[in-house]
Structure formats: structure tokens, C-alpha cells
């Protein structure tokens, strides 16, 4: 067991866990941040996606010990003062989910993409999102939601 301090959604959280335990497991089972999902445990489906310093990362294959010196953002950390980010709002507007289990990972992957590329082409979106699986088949709507979120934002809006 190791003692770690994680910076999650702007808060410093103290947690004790084996160093090799995945960040996903720590978030879900020790910090009760269950918005991040388990899908495959091998970085293939993207359900566990979180942002590390703004970049989309698979938390299922990342040992918690390697996440201590980064700013971790989970789906719970996007909304500020009851306001959704443009990506979240866009997913909601498009109804870009069915069971919704992949949605957290999809939103964080898209958020990371739009941080890096503000106006991605469709090809870039497909490439960026291809590591995330929606088994319900909402891909066409997710694609549309990401495209709409990528359009120029009114002042004061954040992605």
C-alpha cells in the first residue's frame, strides 16, 4: 500500500492504494468517482478515459502511482456552477447516446481533441474518437455532436 495525493477536478485527494492499482480502480472504488467507467481493462474501448493535464488518457491501464503529479479531470469535473461545457451540451442536444455508458469517455476524448485542434476535420474526429467504442451504435450522433461543439463558441463558453 502506498499513500498518494491526487489532484482530481481541482481538489487534492489523499488515497492509500497499491502503487500498481489502476487509476480507474482508485477513482471508482476508493474515491467513489464512478462517472469514469470500466469497459475492457486493456485500453481498447475508451470508457475509462480521463484527462491528464488536459490530454485524454486511458485510466484503466495507468498505475495510480504515475498519476500523482498531474491534474486529473474526470467527467464529474467538467460542469462548472451548474453549467455544462460545450461538448457536454452538444452531446445532450444531439442525444448522442443510448445507454450512455460510453458517454463520459466519449466526452473527455472529444474535449481533449478540441483542446488540441479547435476546428478538426471529420477525418480528424474519426481518427481521434476511433479508440472509443459505443456498442449501442450512436457513433453518427457522437460525430455530429463533436462537430457542433467544434464550431466557434459564443464569448465566455468553455469546452
Amino acid at each position, binding site marked *: 500500500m502506498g499513500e498518494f495525493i491526487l489532484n482530481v477536478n481541482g481538489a487534492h485527494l489523499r488515497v492509500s492504494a497499491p502503487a500498481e492499482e489502476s487509476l480507474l480502480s482508485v477513482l471508482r472504488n476508493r474515491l467513489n468517482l464512478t462517472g469514469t467507467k*470500466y469497459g475492457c481493462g486493456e485500453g*481498447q474501448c475508451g470508457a475509462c478515459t480521463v484527462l491528464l493535464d488536459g490530454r485524454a488518457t486511458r485510466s484503466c491501464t495507468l498505475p495510480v502511482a504515475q498519476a500523482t503529479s498531474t491534474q486529473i479531470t474526470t467527467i464529474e469535473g467538467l460542469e462548472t456552477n451548474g453549467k455544462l461545457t460545450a461538448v457536454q451540451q452538444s452531446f445532450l442536444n444531439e442525444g448522442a447516446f443510448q445507454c*450512455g455508458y460510453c*458517454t463520459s469517455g466519449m466526452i473527455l476524448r472529444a474535449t481533449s481533441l478540441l483542446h488540441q485542434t479547435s476546428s478538426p476535420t471529420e477525418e480528424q474526429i*474519426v481518427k481521434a474518437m*476511433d479508440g472509443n467504442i459505443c*456498442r449501442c*451504435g450512436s*457513433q453518427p450522433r457522437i460525430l455530429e455532436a463533436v462537430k457542433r461543439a467544434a464550431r466557434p463558441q459564443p464569448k465566455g463558453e468553455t469546452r
Partner: protein
Amino acid sequence: MSYRKEPELESFQYEYWSPSGSLSFDRRDFLKVLGGGVLVCLTYDLAWTQESGRSFGGHELPKDVSAWLHIASDGQVKVFTGKAEVGQNIRTSLAQLVAEELRAPFDSIVMVMGDTGLTPWDMGTFGSRTTPTMGPQLRTMAAAARQMLLEMAAERWHVSPDALTAAEGKIVDSQNSRSLTYGELTRGENLVKIVSGQETLTQAAEWKIAGTAVPKSEGRDFVTGKHTYPSDISRPGMLFGAVLRADGFNATLESIDTSEAEKLPGVKVVRDGDFTGVVAPDAFTAQKAISAIRAKWNVPAQPSNKNIFDVLKASADSGGEEGSKHAAGSVEQAMAAASVKLEKRYTVQYIAHAPLEPRAAVAEWSGDNLTVWTGTQRPFGVRDQLTQLFHIPAAQVRVIQPDMGSGYGGKHTGEAALEAARLAKSAGKPVKVVWTRQEEFTWAYLRPAGVMEIKAGAQQDGTLVAWEHHNYNSGSAAIATPYNVTNQLVQYHPSKSPLRQGSYRSLAAAANVFARESHMDGMAHAAGIDPLEFRLKNLTDPRLRAVFETAAGQFGWGRSKSTPERGFGIAGGVDKGGYVAACAEVEIDHAIKKVRIVRVVQAWESGAIVNPDGLRNQITGAIVQAIGGALFEEILFADGRILNPRFSQYCLPRFSDVPRIEVVLINRKDLPSAGAGETGITALAPAVGNAIFAATGIRLPNMPMSLKNNTPGQPEPAARK
């Protein structure tokens, strides 16, 4: 054409159909719990008749009443149904139907679903039954409640109920310019109304809330991560469990050493007959403890992909399950006289549902009472499994199904619930069990593999005269041909499957429609007739004709000719009240023998549309899911082991696989609403196969279809990415 009505669901040996026990509490207690108001109940006899339309092994339901709808004094309407929301959007669509009949705002409706302690008994959420059965059921309750509210207001105002109207959660007396909200009417009341179920329902043409694109209820919780899935449930003092799995199917345990696992801090090993599991203070340690158990297994030799189709045919009609057969005229004589003939064998491999949320459960004992939160399409079925395992009355077991990370027919059973309950009983604390992806691939159940053999004959002008279709193992759904053929032999042969198999979205319809529509395409080409024209020539059913013509029109069927690099295909069918036709355009890269689906147009009709947005999402999703089974999904297995039980080995449709999809919905407001969760998956694969044939002249009769390996039963490992 007459065809013995096929069972609406195919049951397999793993599925228990023995609902038992009486209601866990008196419905009159409901009002105490709910704090007064008006409770609308229905005698169970009628509910049963409407729900099933068939008998279940002599099972008798209690002659009790069950509560479906409660209007509280604040105007909030609680609706109770045992159906499960798994992503198909029924939490929203059912609420729309209730709001419509009750003349109440959509936002005033709260759906209480899939909770055996609160909702009326329900068989389960499958077979596209929610919309055609639960829909009218809840509409009836809502219409009865509306009538009651009208009568209550009439009594209070001393007027005739006929002078009053119900609208937007109020009873309005327009002559005297006064109104009462439902909340005002029910305040201080403590009424239980038992209804007969003979209410007149609002016609779809008059719908104002139903029939519209109401956004998914609680949609915000899905984009903020707030929604609690079964695997997210946490209880005070909860421990984490894991279960030891055998090295293969039908394995016997030779020896086991649990000493290393027991040395881990806080770990308890639980052994009970064949069952070995662990509980631990955290999930990581639970998995570590399972890995630390040394077990030796004897795994017998078993079939593999190489011989599966021979095995299924050899064991046909020996599975103890009853098949189905339809015969008319003489296929033999008609074939002899036919000038166009085609005979072919089609196959489908086992595939996995792979719901993104694997099986999960939290079990908590309180004395002899058990509560389990779990992801299942059959909460009452899981309750029965639990009562059987622990020999306790149903009244002591409550199964709660939080809206889950989908199922597609793959979560009819309660494995994780049973495991968590066993471990929790032994640990004396709540226990959570979440299956790993490998467990889900290996120890759940699969869409059956199957062999379809079809023989058909037509006259030179394209008139079908003979049709013979045999299905081995995969099932009877949609096996009847919708085309006009005088001489027919259509037969489903149950087999003994070496792998655990069960329901999958559309059951065997995906397999039977693939085989039939591929064969129809082959017949059309053999007769030298356009595939659409050939179908329409032999088709009377106006609804099926309509979807074919609609899809073809939108697609621009016949406008371009197929080339070796680009093919166009069409296919369609009807099952469970849903009519579907798809046109597909594919690109063939001959250098790497790769098929890419470029464009799909699918027309869909299932009567009156309850929610066009939700329906479009379902149909689009079905098309995307169908791509996997059509082109690359297959379970690889040998000697009792699944060889590709991971997402890195078993490919699912990804963004880059998804073509341009156009869904055309036909809204038949004059027809009852049918379910739309399943049949939308059936047309894509044959349309794609037919497009590949149009481009290349190669018929790919085995799903998944690949130009790289066209040998049945000898698939290449799915190492696509």
C-alpha cells in the same frame, strides 16, 4: 399464406421461466409509503393476458391487484413497470404515452422501473414487447386515472363529468372558468381504484406528447457522469468479490490451493461445492486473491470453429427443444419443374453481445432478507433464481435494476447477482461483483451459431414456385418467408450447442433474414432480374413493399450500375411487427481484399411512432451494431475455451467502420405501435453481402463475410486493428 405462429421468444436451457411467489407487499401499503393520493391498480389476470398472450408452464399469478400509477398531492405521477431501461429509451417513450392519456405534462411523470419490490411482476424486457404490450397497459391505466379525476372534479363542483375536460395536469370547467390541478384534486385523498382495463385510448393521430421527439429523460445525468449504473452502486461497509473461473467449459476441478490468497490482508475465501470466490476490502485485492488461487482443472476435448457447423447439424433435433415446421404443396415437384434453381448453405458464427457495462451486482443481506442491485433484463427472473438458490420466499428478495449499460438480449440471467449474494451471505456484509471483460466474453452466453440451408426454384419470368429453408441451431425467428411461394418447406432444427447460447438482439432473425435475402438476391441474378424487381414481383404484403420502395427511392436504386470496385445491394424483411429494408453501397479494395460500407439507407416502419428521435437512434444503432456481425465479429473457440475474449482480439464496430447512414421512418398512425429494438439489425448484413456480390460476383454465404477467407468454419483470427 399460413404459417404456424412461431414462439415470440426462443427459450434456451439457461433461461428460467418459473416466476413464483406472491407479491412482496400489500398494495394498500403503497399509499402509506407514497403519502396518499390516488393509486390506480389493475387485476392481475388481465395484466397477465395482455402481457403474454401465452401460458407459462401452468404458472398462476396471484389473484391480487397490482399498482401501476400513483398521483401524489403535488401532482407528481409515479408510474410502475417491471420493464428495464437498457438504452432503448423506454423510460422516455412510456412516460410520453402516460402523459398523453393522462393529459399531464411530460415532466410530471416519474417512471419507477425494474424493481421487484415496487413494480408489478414482469416477464422481462425482450422480444420487442415493451411498446406493443407495456405501452397499451400503461395507457389504459392513465386513461382510467383521467376518468377518475374527471369524476372527482365533477363531484366537487356538482356538475356532470361530461362538461369537464382534462388538459395539462388540470381538470378544466370552461363553462364556469375554473380548474383544479391533479394535485389539488388528489390532496387529502387515499383512493385505490381497481380498473377493468377497457378504457378507450387516444388515437395516435390525436397525440400531442406521444409521437413527438421528447428528449431522453434524465439525459443530463449521462453527460455529467451522475447516472448510477449497476456497477456504480455502493453500500456502507461494502466488500468486493471475485469468482474463480474454470480453465474451460465442462471442466472438473482436480485440485485447489487457496492458501496464498488467504494470506492477503482482509481476504476471505468462500467455497461452496463447485463455487469458489473471494471477498476483499477492495476490488484490486479481490482480483489479486483470485489470481493467487492455484487450481488444476481437467478440460475435456470439445468442438471448435473448425467443425462447429458439422457438430450442429449432426446433433440437430436432439436438443430436447421443440423445433417448428411449415410445409405447403410439394417443393420436390415444384423444383423439378422450375427453370431457375439455386441451392446454398449459409452460416453464422457465435457472436458476443459485448455490452459495454459487463455483468455487475451488489448484494446486501439484512437478516433473511436480500436486496440485490444488478444489471439484468429480467429482474423478476433474477429474483426467482435467487429464491431458488437460497430457498427463501420471493417476498424476502428484492432485485433492483438501475438503468444499465445495455444488454442487447445478453443480460437475461443473473450470474453476478447470484455470486454477489453468495459472497455477501458468507461475508456478512454487502458485496459487489463486477465481471471483467474476459469473464463477460467467456461466462455469459452468446448469439447462437447456425447453419441455414436454402433451396429455391422460380419460373423463367421470376415467379417463385419452391422454397425450402432449414435452420440448424440458431432459431426460428423470421424463418417464414414473406414472399409468395406455393410450395414450401420451412423448418427449424434445434441442436445441442457446445457453447452457452441465448437471446441476442432479433434472435435468429438476423441469421434467417441474412440467408433468405442472400438467396433471394442469388435467385434474382440467376433469373436475370433486378433484385428489387424480383422481390416486388413475389411480394404482396403492402407494408413490406412500402419499406422496400421507400429505401430504394431514397437510395436512388438502379441509378448507378455496380462496378468491380463499387457494389449496390438491397435486402429486407419483417419480424416482431417491424418492417425493414436496407440499401447498401460498398467499396471493394481488391489489393487488400477489404470491404468498406460507404452508405446505407434503411427504411423502417413499426406502426405509429411514439418518439421519432428515440426510434431513429434505435434504428441507426441497430445498423451500426449489424456491421460487426456482418463483417468481422466472431467468437473463436476450441476445446472449451474462448480464444478471443478481449476487445483487442474481438473487434467491434468503431467510428472508422461507420458509413453514411440515412434512416427513413414511415409513420403509420393508423396502426398500433410495435417494438423497434431488434428487427432493425436484420437487413444490413444481407444488403452488404448482396452489394459485394454485385461488385465482385462472389457470394459470401458465411457471416462474418470476408473476402480474405471464404472457407466456412475456418476463420482467420480477428486481429484487425
